[in-house]
């Protein structure tokens, strides 16, 4: 296809801009690899900023090329740190918005085309408008057949049509990025609204993820707005998270919340007295399972299940990933061994496996509290397909 050779031509047209954007992409990738940026919030925001600059710099002759280039960028970022899902998530979100816009645009142009020369585009037009009707009529409850069929047919049509479109896709993407940044920045407000209803007076809460800012704000909000008095138990999270746990407890205490740090081993003993377990998540997968940011959370949730204690997971929408955790090991990040054991000669020492993050299966989570409301884990897939396109789940393969 001619579009394959286009990017290089584009590069030649404006070498400076391309070099400059390449510099920032590359330094961002290097930072991801060196784990210099961490935290899904920061990663998501930085990715969006980078994408914004990327979009302003790239040139394309057809919107397909734009999609291909964004996918390429997303693929590079995902590869750089496979456990930083934030990059992939936001890029896939933007792609979904872009594809929606293309669809819209195509429909318009076809409608226009249909009115001017009905004979030529008759079949096409009928086809797509029929599909379009279905999707408009039943935006949520489309059949499995339509879910699989619709985007492919549409895109097929569109990719084949070489007609110029009127829509300024650059503007569309940049606007989408701005919206998404706003959304991410205001995520806590949405979640906090729900907080007040969930926490009762004189309740004992347990949180095993002290580094989550969302959890922190959630609790503080419940204390300050609703003026509830409750006790928070914080697990120590040894060895990776101990410092965070202490900071977290301190902050809560400053807001006049009764806070107790408990050793990780005491969770089972205390669980019978706990009213709710609140966990922050790093990533929520399409099956409703989630990656949480410290090892041991999984066992805490297991424990909660044993005692029928409800587990609430708080997550911004941007943490939702369209991936399915077939191989959990690939998605969990393994940290260093140096904090667990003293350094010894390799020949006579224990090998340690230090998971930094942990996977909580969907059956151990009772409800997800997101900025757009609370959902059961089994419903997560629907929200995902509202925000992502099937075609963009995996960025590495060739599209179509």
């Amino acid at each position, binding site marked *: 296809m001619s579009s394959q050779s286009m990017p290089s031509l584009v590069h030649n047209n404006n070498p400076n801009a391309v070099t400059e954007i390449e*510099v920032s992409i590359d330094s961002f990738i*290097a930072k991801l690899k060196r784990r210099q940026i961490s935290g899904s919030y920061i990663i998501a925001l930085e990715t969006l900023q980078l994408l914004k600059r990327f979009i302003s710099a790239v040139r394309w002759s057809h919107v397909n090329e734009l999609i291909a280039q964004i996918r390429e960028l997303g693929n590079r970022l995902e590869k750089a740190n496979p456990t930083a899902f934030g990059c992939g998530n936001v890029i896939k979100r933007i792609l979904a918005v872009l594809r929606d816009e293309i669809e819209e645009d195509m429909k318009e142009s076809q409608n226009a085309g249909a009115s001017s020369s009905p004979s030529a585009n008759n079949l096409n037009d009928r086809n797509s408008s029929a599909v379009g009707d279905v999707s408009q009529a039943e935006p949520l409850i489309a059949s499995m057949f339509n879910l699989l069929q619709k985007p492919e047919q549409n895109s097929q049509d569109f990719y084949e049509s070489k007609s110029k479109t009127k829509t300024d896709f650059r503007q569309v993407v940049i606007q989408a990025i701005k919206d998404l940044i706003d959304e991410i920045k205001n995520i806590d407000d949405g979640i906090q609204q729900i907080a007040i209803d969930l926490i009762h007076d004189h309740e004992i809460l347990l949180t095993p993820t002290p580094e989550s800012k969302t959890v922190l704000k959630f609790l503080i909000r419940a204390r300050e707005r609703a003026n509830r008095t409750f006790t928070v138990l914080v697990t120590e999270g040894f060895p990776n998270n101990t410092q965070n746990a202490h900071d977290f407890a301190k902050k809560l205490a400053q807001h006049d919340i009764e806070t107790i740090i408990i050793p990780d081993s005491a969770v089972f003993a205390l669980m019978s007295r706990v009213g709710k377990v609140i966990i922050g998540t790093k990533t929520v997968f399409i099956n409703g399972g989630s990656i949480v940011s410290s090892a041991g959370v999984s066992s805490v949730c297991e424990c909660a299940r044993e005692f029928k204690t409800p587990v609430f997971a708080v997550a911004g929408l941007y943490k939702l990933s369209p991936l399915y955790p077939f191989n959990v090991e690939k998605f969990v990040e393994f940290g260093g061994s140096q904090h667990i054991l*003293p350094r010894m000669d390799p020949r006579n*020492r224990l090998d340690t496996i230090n998971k930094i993050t942990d996977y909580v299966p969907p059956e151990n989570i009772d409800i997800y509290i997101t900025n757009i409301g609370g959902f059961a884990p089994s419903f997560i897939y629907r929200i995902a397909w509202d925000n992502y396109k099937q075609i963009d789940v995996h960025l590495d393969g060739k599209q179509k």
Partner: protein
Amino acid sequence: MAPKKGSVGNSNSRDVDVEDRFQAVVLTDSFETRFMPLTADKPRCLLPLANVPLIEYTLEFLANAGVNEVYLTCSSHANQIDEYIENSKWNLPWSPFKISTILAPEARSVGDVMRDLDNRGIITGDFILVSGDVITNIDISKMIEFHRKMHAQDKDHIATMCLSEATEYYKTRTFEPAAFILDKSTNRCIYYQDLPLISSQEKGAVQIDPELLESVDEFTIRNDLIDCRIDICTPHVPPIFQDNFDYQSLRTDFVRGVISSDILGKSIYAYITSDYATRVESWQSYDTISQDYIGRWCYPMVLDNNMQYDQTYSYESRHIYKENNVVLAQSCKIGKCTAIGSGTKIGEGTRIENSIIGRNCQISENIVIKDSFIWDNTIIGDNSKIKHSIVASHAKLGNNVTLNDGCIIGFNVIIDDNMEIPKSTKISFKPVKNLGSSTFNLGGDEEASDEEDSVEYSSFVGVNGVGYLYDSDTSDDDEDESNDIHKVSNCLAYQLEELYLSDASISSITKRKKKKRTMSSNSMYTDREDIESEDDDDEDFEAEGLATVERALENNHDIDTALLELNTLRMSMNVTYHEVRTVTVMALVRRVYHFISTQTLGPKDAVHKVFNHWGDLFKRQAFEESEFVDLMNIIMDVVEDTHFDKPDLILFGAFTSLYDNDILEEDIIYKWWDNVSDDPKYDNVKGLIAKWVEWLRTADEESSEEESSEEE
């Protein structure tokens, strides 16, 4: 020669203000031969550790540190390094720093490099001085902060060394153990001293000039610090090397020199961290660090970060790393702590554990690989067993080959079927320098040499094999032939029982200091001598003097020139004739040892050749009777120390040669013999001498007039 501009199209954003830019100097050459024979083909910093060239780890560290400019100083294999850097990702316009290589092929020591650096005037501000084989995850920003703080407090502060704390469980702490004496409150380094190796039976002692401790309230002596050779230096450092043109090594000369010098009045501080920081300085540390790296002890620097663009490692639990396109047979077993590069095929029934396999290797069926390092593009035949060995790139092992503990198979070596390589054997494709004499042709089917030895060694690579035995002990003067401690510890094989570190042995005090490591402009030595006291002059003179005499011996200078050089040295360093004699004797004996060990000459011939020709040197180094007696004592000491097979024969040969050449008179010999020390360690040295003196005395009596004229 201006430094080559590495990157061309730099964006403006990185052209930082000259004042603010942060520079780093990477010493890619260590001026050592510990990685022979592999370093004969490739510089140390390009040897792969966990399938990534060593230098990458250092550069990655510098990138993390936020350095703006990096200068790589290359001397041996400079063109290879230059080429590598040119094609690496660091040379791309978006690399985090500007990288330039400085070619200094004439440099022979770290001191030379620093002087070169000063001459070029590149350094404008504080810079990081780091050796090209560092693997670390330290947070440099804290170190810089420490450096700045100390600099604000003490304007004489010129450098900060980064030292990493080792735990008591870490037995092989470092290959170059040293004691640091630090001021407790500020971490100012008061004194630095090398310690004898852990494996040696010697006792180490630290002697501190009381004057150094005058202004210090409390100090600590620490030997548990791993010197990872990451220093932050102020721009004053290179000029100090310039002023003290005899400084060779960074620690022994520079650090010791600076902190014990009243005139300079500069101070060096130590930054102590508990993060991971070590150097790949020997085969053992290569082994340890590889395992540490695979075991994720250096997190966040781990293999599945895929630092190189083309890497595709992914992690599985039990520390298994696999790249894409690895072909594993169904019945093969991949055990813990293993990394496998892309394109590698592993056959049925093969078991691999604790090993690192490079790219595009063909590993056939029913092979056992344990604790080993297989580099790229190797081929290993069926039913082979590889235990704790290194197989370098493009090597080819036949079927049923067994590599025992500690083998090092060089680049391109071919080993025939059914061979068993004994423990700690090093084999290289080409004979490694200084040759002819020191290595033997192992390829049985290449020229049929009738030397017995070659028959013996062809047992290593087999009839169809290609490879030469590399034996660091007999090869040349570069490696300290007399020092069997090094021989022991610089091989890969397990020697834990020998390496057992007892802290108690360091605290006990003895007056002898035996080991000394210095660099000379020719090469690197380690000598063992019995010198009661030494100060810096002594040590410098020794290295210089030794080098001078050896140069003379090697290039066959005439005696007058050699004497002139020695004398100049003696005057300039202000040492006595005793030192001059010691140095000369040492050089001569070493020469003899060299001849014998390379089997060029028999022991007797060697001694006669060397001492007949060069004995005249002593005529101008000893004048009085007592001085000649001293000379004889020195010869005996040195011979005793050098560990010949037959020390008595050597000593006897030396004395008779000197006697025959009228350098030693009978009276002197008698006098010496009467006062000779009864120390039992000299007993086997003196064996023949006793008879000789006896014979001289009887001959003297029989023909008192003729003396020994007929023997001349």
